[in-house]
């Protein structure tokens, strides 16, 4: 072949060139016997090799299959479910016994990698400031919890202490600081870090960087720290690389009695951390509550939809209170999780409930809205016989008599078409404005936060015209719109049967919560007998209101309604005040009054035809808007309605809410 040269003559003829090349090659190849034989031998060899490789492959696969089937044997033994309950565990050939952990801390970026897999990476601006904490399972290396505590801000260190104390001994703790983590890191927290064996943690200073790996209650496995040289600059980025030896699975688990509940508990506790005593080895908190059944429970077969996002700790707290409520039936509960989050699903599984995940559609409020729609539709699909559904959210505590309250009042929804919902929440029911757990109101606003929805309302009216994803509407605002509500009202209790504890949320922050939700009254008395429930029906309620107004003592309208002395220091009286309200939608004075009463003032809530009912100093306090309210006729002619102007002219009470 070496002596072969293409003929220079042929070159110019492009069209012929190809063929002649081909022919030449063909000629050469077919005539060189050696080459031919070489090719033949090559082919045979190739064939042989292929055969051998294939045989080997088959044998290997066979072996693998037989091994696998040996492993699977107990599972194959027909009890599929049993097999699935146990976490996948392979005895003998375990995984690597050492984890290779990398922790990075700097001003603008933190990351943690375990065996080359990034388990935390945060380089977003204006976010994730503070101490990031990751908990790894000491036997498997799985991430069990991921938290960030913004210890630059107050009280976050307390949350961190709480969290770290809840982590089971033996777990691998990883801490890393982004931006600043020392400003509000108080002594308790520093002492805790010291007890973990950290050197730098307790001495963490302004804008220091710090990375730490240690075992809870065990040795420190690595720590790096860089001091900030000046107030205006940050410590140098630090990168900590360390090996974490894994311990055996037996050590990582508690020895609870082998019961159904503990099986669920074990599965949960081997996956996640930060739920406190539920995973305590010695004295785990119960996960089954079996509250007293309700006699004559009218809501036993009403499905309960719990709308949840990715706030598993909230969900945990919520479900605990829900499952402790008298008359709860766990098989009627469905938790709808907005997104493919694992941890909320783990919480749901811990309590043995039904959980459904929802692929996120749209963004922000519209996403919540779409999640609501899917959840409600699914609820009525899953319980086709149900005439109602209870709608709850993951950041609510549920009162012990929540179902008792509903059981006593749900017939109203069946019998009175003028009702829109029954809600467990009184927007105006603060500790200083709610008193009587047996008392119910009718209000024109839809409070949400634990409410009952009528199936016919949903299926015939709401579902067909539910806001589409591109409309970025709040579902609850939409439901409150006159087109939807059509003049119908909700029944609410004076003392709420739910408590909104969520601080983190789409429309929530710490300040907002403290101002408007923290001081909300929440019923803790079991088995409250509601008073005169049928008087909540449309016509009966008017009779009731007229009776009340006739009984009520008219307050001294010359006094400042924002002063505490506006109401006499009596108990058990009924008082009425008249405020100016020119039209049905004129709430100027009411809003100012609400401000100084330190109740909900962001929009109008809790009114019934220009009447508000609340409690002050253990007296029933009625406020009537004149002349818009039909109850204006109860105003004695001598009384001039109170008029409060919007700030800044107003003095005294207004703005109190902001100052709390």
């Amino acid at each position, binding site marked *: 072949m070496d002596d072969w040269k293409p003929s220079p003559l042929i070159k110019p003829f492009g069209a012929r060139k190809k063929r002649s090349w081909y022919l030449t090659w063909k000629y050469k190849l077919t005539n060189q016997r050696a080459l031919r034989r070489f090719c033949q031998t090559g082919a045979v060899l190739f064939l042989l090799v292929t055969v051998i490789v294939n045989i080997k492959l088959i044998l290997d696969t066979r072996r693998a299959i037989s091994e696998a089937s040996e492993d699977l044997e107990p599972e194959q033994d027909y009890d599929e*479910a049993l097999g699935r309950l146990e976490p996948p565990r392979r005895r003998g050939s375990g995984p690597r016994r050492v984890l290779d952990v990398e922790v990075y801390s700097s001003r603008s970026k933190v990351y943690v990698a375990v065996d080359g897999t990034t388990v935390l990476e945060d380089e977003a601006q204006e976010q994730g400031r503070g101490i990031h904490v990751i908990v790894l399972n000491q036997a498997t290396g799985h991430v069990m919890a991921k938290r960030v505590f913004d210890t630059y801000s107050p009280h976050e260190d307390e949350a961190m202490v709480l969290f770290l104390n809840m982590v089971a001994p033996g777990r691998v703790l990883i801490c890393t600081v982004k931006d600043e983590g020392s400003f509000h890191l108080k002594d308790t927290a520093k002492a805790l870090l010291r007890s973990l064996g950290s050197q730098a943690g307790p001495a963490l200073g302004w804008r220091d960087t710090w990375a730490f790996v240690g075992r809870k209650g065990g040795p420190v496995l690595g720590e790096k720290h860089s001091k900030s040289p000046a107030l205006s600059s940050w410590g140098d980025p630090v990168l900590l690389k360390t090996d974490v030896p894994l311990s055996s699975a037996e050590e990582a688990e508690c020895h609870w009695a082998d019961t159904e509940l503990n099986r669920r508990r074990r599965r949960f506790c081997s996956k996640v951390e930060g739920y406190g005593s539920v995973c305590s080895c010695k004295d785990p908190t119960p996960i089954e509550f079996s509250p007293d059944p309700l006699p004559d429970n009218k809501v036993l077969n009403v499905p309960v939809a719990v709308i949840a996002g990715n706030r598993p700790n909230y969900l945990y707290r919520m479900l605990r209170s829900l499952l402790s409520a008298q008359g709860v039936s766990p*098989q009627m509960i469905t938790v709808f999780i907005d997104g493919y989050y694992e941890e909320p699903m783990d919480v749901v599984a811990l309590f043995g409930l039904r959980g459904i995940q929802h692929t996120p559609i749209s963004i922000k409020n519209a996403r919540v809205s779409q999640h609501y729609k899917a959840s409600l*539709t699914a609820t009525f699909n899953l319980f086709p016989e149900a005439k109602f559904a209870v709608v709850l959210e993951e950041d609510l505590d549920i009162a012990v008599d929540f179902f008792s309250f509903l059981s006593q009042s749900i017939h109203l929804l069946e019998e009175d078409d003028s009702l829109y919902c029954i809600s467990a929440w009184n927007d105006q029911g603060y500790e200083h404005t709610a008193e009587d757990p047996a008392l119910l109101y009718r209000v024109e606003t839809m409070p949400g936060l634990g409410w009952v929805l009528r199936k016919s309302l949903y299926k015939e009216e709401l579902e067909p015209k539910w806001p589409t994803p591109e409309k970025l509407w709040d579902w609850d605002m939409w439901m409150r719109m006159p087109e939807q509500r059509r003049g119908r009202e909700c029944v609410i209790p004076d003392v709420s049967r739910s408590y909104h504890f969520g601080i983190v949320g789409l429309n929530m922050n710490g300040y907002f919560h403290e101002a408007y939700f923290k001081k909300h009254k929440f019923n803790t008395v079991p088995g409250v007998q509601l008073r005169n429930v049928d008087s909540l029906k449309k016509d009966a309620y008017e009779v009731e209101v007229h009776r009340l107004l006739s009984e009520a003592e008219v307050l001294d309208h010359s006094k400042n309604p924002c002063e505490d002395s506006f109401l006499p220091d009596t108990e058990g009286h009924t008082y009425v005040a008249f405020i100016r309200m020119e039209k049905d939608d004129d709430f100027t004075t009411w809003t100012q009054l609400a401000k100084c009463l330190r109740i909900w003032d962001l929009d109008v809530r809790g009114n019934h035809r220009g009447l508000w009912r609340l409690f002050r100093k253990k007296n029933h306090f009625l406020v009537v808007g004149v002349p818009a309210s039909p109850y204006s006729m109860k105003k004695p002619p001598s009384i001039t309605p109170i008029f409060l102007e919007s700030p800044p002219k107003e003095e005294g009470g207004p703005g109190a809410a902001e100052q709390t």
Partner: protein
Amino acid sequence: MGRRSSDTEEESRSKRKKKHRRRSSSSSSSDSRTYSRKKGGRRSRSKSRSWSRDLQPRSHSYDRRHRHRSSSSSSYGSRRKRSRSRSRGRGKSYRVQRSRSKSRTRRSDQDLGHVPIVKAVKGQVTEEHVVGLGIENDVKAEIRRKEKRKRIKNGSGLSKSKESRIGFDGTQWRAVKKFIMLTSSQNVPVFLIDPLILELINKNFEQVKNTSHASSTSECKFFCVPRDFTTFALQYQLWKNEEGWFRLAENMGFQCLKVESKDPRLDWIDSLSGTEIPLHYICKLTSHAIHLVVFHERSGNYLWHGHLRLKGHIDRKFVPFRKLQFGRYPGAFDRPELQQITVDGLDVLIPKDPMHFLEEIPHSRFIECRYKEARAFFQHYLDDNTVEAMTFQKRAKELLQLAAKTLKKLGVRFWLSSGTCLGWYRQCSIIPYSKDVDLGIFIQDYKSDIISAFQDAGLPLKHKFGKVEDSLELSFQGKDDVKLDIFFFYEETDHMWNGGTQAKTGKKFKYLFPKFTLCWTEFVDTKFRVPCETIEYIEANYGKTWKIPIKTWDWKRSPPNVSPNGVWPVSEWDEVIQLY
């Protein structure tokens, strides 16, 4: 005793051996098995004589086997052979084996795992073959078998051994008893739906009602009829402690297989994925298995059970899945009222109207709407969200529900036809620009009081075309301008058809359809029937391009299956063209 029982012994021994290999830790369960076997043996021997006298239904397959085998070879022996050949022929393709089952050889009931037969056997053969065979065949077969047994009994030693074998098989009764004990102790309200036993109970209903607890124990007449399964059902939402029950069952010695699947009730909402729901439990105690069908509530006030689909890792030899009476297809049933009775010394719940339930079984097959395709359709063509469209859909839905209620009261079978059927199949909803709703009824189900029943329901007759013998079609005026059309279908040897009439000219039209059977489905929150062979039905009516929405449709010209059918003689016009 002789050969047969030793066969049994041997077989179960070899089974046990296999099991031991697979599950070395289950010594306790195998102990309990031996125990129950002995016990069962003792009690059944005393009863062995009564057995041969009684009418004893068996599973159809058993019967078929008998027909094809000579009487000298025992069924058990044949089963052993089968199982051997099965393990040998494991690698063979399903097609071969299935075609055998079609030709009804003795191996027809072979345990091939649960491969949906639809793929292999076309058309209605499947339906009849698999679901329908439950009862009627059995009764006939029984008689035949009885005769045969008489013959065998006369002077053959074999017959005696047969008796003792059957009596010996008290394990079956014990399995049922244990299962009932287990469920009642856990307050799990299971009810008996086994077609064979229900049939027996139904036949001897008076007797069953009158026998006291004590006297009925003297003879085991219902639960001891040899078969592989006893079938129970349960409404899922009444099951409080499923996991605990499952565990308890295992502790009692049952080996349980749980078949789960995703929840079809969430299918329409594409973005939801939930925990799977249990569809079937099969719990085996020694040689007898309890099949627990889990019913789920659906919109439209009916109960639904799922398809028993064996996933890859499930042991196909766990039980002879082929012989299961439920689960080959999903099914829909009216929610039965229950009653408690005592049979064979056991307290069981059964449907209050066993006959009605039995009648439902052969026609219970359920098909789900094609939600995925419907979503794709709406992605392509967008949903009509105008007020008019939604109002029409709402009215049409109400009309459909009213029609369903009325026809159900009359006991008339009907199905979604034409545009309504297309809407269901293509988009799982009512086509907003259709002007009416269409139903089909077989002419043999025609009742003269249909018209008055609709009138009473507030739907006056709008027009009536044709006559019962030919091309009957009724139209009722619903509220708010929505019309209800009922087409009557006539069956020929190889096709079905319905007729149309043009009022002006008296022209007749004929619409041909390939033969079809009826299945249940859910549409607008109601249970409706539709042709099981939906695609053929729709393609006949709308052609291959049915997926493309067309707003202008001429019922005389557009359908591909329309053909002119002459003209009504003018003398008949008064009868066959009635307009109101």
